[in-house]
């Protein structure tokens, strides 16, 4: 009897002793820390997304760790700058996975950096949670280890943009101005495709520009010649601000439609009066500056953490990454103490309508698709504020059909 009891006690002791080692066997997970790697542009003309992505995620992590962490472990975030370059993004991801040995990747790179990293992340089987990038490759073809959080798939942008332009703005002649890099090019392509598929409309002009351009006169003159009823602009807020001002100087007073990354305070800060009347679509239920108590409380927390940042921050990307870091943390929690990649994937796929507070859009993942958010809210800029417009998309989306 004594012998059996001794054996049981020894076995139990051995199991307890082994428990941390089992957890530690998973790369990036120790007894007290889960190391997450993150990357995005924090230098160059797209820094407004990477800096915000990093700061929003760090704010969430600070709160999560202060509240006790994840099943007894704290989250540690390692951040790499990708300079908005696919090649640098690949280098960043290789460093995070191979050198820093992170458990999972949190991507705040936007589409340009994200596409550079996808193949390597798939090859390594590491879980990558993409907070914002609309590039199709994140979620199609379906990869079990890739998840898209706050932004939706570019095909859905195409659907909503096309319907809004044709149904609400009554635009039959549409001109598109888009940047040459991944995100604006994809959005311009998606709008073109959907205008043709649903309304048999071909844009009267497609004018392209380079990221960081400061003069849009040549493109605007081409657009002017095409006599559009609506001008759709896909680029960065700094670019849109200049284009909006120059458009008015050249006598282009048509409605100006802008993509989701510009539908926030940063465009108004940069464009001032020239932004008046612009139409946009937001990925968020509430924008920074809203009088909603939840947003006011969040803004106060953010400003306490980052007191010296400029007007225009926090922006959409601070909010998206903050909300998404909480989604990832919730999945890590659900995955349990014995954390593995498979358990994290299963836990993420169990996320349904989850959000940390009303400032975030609810995210849902299933075993069939990993597109967390399909919600898009149309807004119009009036007197220095984005205001909801009384219109919503009615046509059923085709985006999820291919995942069935």
């Amino acid at each position, binding site marked *: 009897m004594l012998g059996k009891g001794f054996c049981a006690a020894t076995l139990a002791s051995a199991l307890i002793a082994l428990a941390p080692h089992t957890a530690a066997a998973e790369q990036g997970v120790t007894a007290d820390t889960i190391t997450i790697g993150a990357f995005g542009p*924090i*230098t*160059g*003309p797209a*820094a*407004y997304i990477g*800096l915000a992505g990093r700061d929003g995620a760090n704010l969430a992590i600070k709160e999560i760790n202060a509240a006790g962490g994840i099943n007894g472990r704290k989250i540690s975030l390692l951040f790499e700058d990708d300079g908005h370059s696919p090649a640098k993004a690949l280098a960043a991801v290789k460093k995070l996975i191979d050198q820093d040995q992170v458990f999972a990747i949190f991507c705040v790179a936007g589409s340009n950096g994200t596409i550079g990293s996808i193949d390597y992340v798939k090859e390594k089987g590491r879980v990558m949670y993409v907070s914002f990038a609309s590039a199709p490759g994140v979620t199609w073809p379906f990869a079990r280890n890739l998840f898209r959080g706050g932004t939706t798939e570019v095909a859905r942008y195409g659907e909503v943009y096309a319907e809004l332009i044709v149904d609400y703005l009554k635009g039959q002649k549409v001109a598109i101005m888009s940047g040459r890099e991944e995100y604006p090019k994809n959005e311009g392509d998606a709008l073109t495709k959907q205008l043709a598929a649903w309304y048999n409309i071909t844009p009267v002009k497609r*004018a*392209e*520009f*380079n990221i*960081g*351009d*400061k*003069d*849009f*006169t*040549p*493109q605007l*003159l*081409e657009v*002017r010649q095409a006599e559009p009823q609506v001008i759709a602009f896909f680029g960065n807020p*700094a670019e849109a601000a*200049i284009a909006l*001002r*120059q458009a*008015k*100087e*050249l*006598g282009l007073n048509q409605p100006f439609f802008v993509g989701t990354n510009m539908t926030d305070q940063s465009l108004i*800060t*940069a464009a*001032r*009066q*020239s932004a008046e009347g612009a139409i946009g679509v937001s990925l968020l239920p509430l924008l920074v500056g809203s009088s909603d108590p939840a947003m006011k409380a969040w803004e106060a927390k953010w400003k306490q953490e980052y007191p010296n*940042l*400029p*007007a*225009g*921050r926090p922006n959409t990307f601070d909010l998206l990454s903050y909300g998404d870091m909480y989604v990832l943390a919730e999945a890590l929690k659900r995955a349990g103490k014995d954390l593995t990649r498979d358990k994290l994937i299963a836990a993420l796929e169990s996320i349904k309508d989850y959000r940390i507070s009303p400032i975030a859009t609810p995210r849902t993942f299933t075993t069939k698709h990993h597109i967390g958010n399909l919600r898009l809210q149309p807004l119009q800029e009036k007197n220095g504020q984005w205001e909801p417009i009384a219109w919503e998309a009615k046509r059923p989306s085709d985006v999820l059909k291919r995942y069935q």
Partner: protein
Amino acid sequence: MTWQVAFQLALSGASVGSIYAMVALALVIPYKASGVLNFAQGEIVTLGAYTGLVLSLATSLPFVALIPITLIVAALFGIAIERLLIRPILAAPEFTLVIATFAIGLIIRAAIRLYWQDNTFPLEAPFVGPPLSLGPLRLNPAYLVVIATLLVLVGALIVFFRYSKFGKAMRAVALNVTAARLMGIDINSVFASSWALATAIGALTGLLLAPIIGVNPEIGHLILKALVAAVIGGFTSVGGAVVGGLLLGILETFGGAFFGATFKNVIPFGILILLLLVKPHGLFGRAVQQRV
């Protein structure tokens, strides 16, 4: 193309060209005086914008009051660079000096990034606002202010170089350093002053740009275009730098309008190569004959 559009393009081109011209001036002045081509001049533009930003955040001074303070700060910075970093290596090969100025620029930009990161900060100025209507024309007040500033600056430089004792001393040094020294001109003061003047002009350019495109570490990314403008003008000619800058801005804008945005960035370098084939010393430069 209607005459209204042509006028808008000319105004836009002259405004962009004025910015190029100011940076080109800031390259040419110390080059004439000390023979050093300052590749950090783009970062001096950035520094001017950030100095204005810091002053606007730290004080409640209006934009107009920020200008003289920023210019004084920039001029002192120029003197410090010349005294501490350039003068000790003035005897080094030209290439070494160029690399040294490159390094100064990189250090300035990295230092700015350390604290401010790549956020874009707005800077309020009275000249940034809705376009002014003049009949069928819509005039951007910022364009007008930039062009007017260049004209005032050129006027002030002409008066300074032609009529002031120090300006004449700078011209003498530019012509012949040895002769100027023998005439009793304090060469070191002239070198330092030329750097102070150039950094002040660079900072003024940054202050003008900041309210228009926002303050960020890349705001002074103008050095290549300014170099092209300076070379078109002949490099050693102040008037040439201004003409080169304006010509470049206007040709670039009209070229973009006629041939599309893709060619816009090719145009300055195409013009440069063509011009150098026809006039190797630029529009206003002259070949220097030396007896050996």
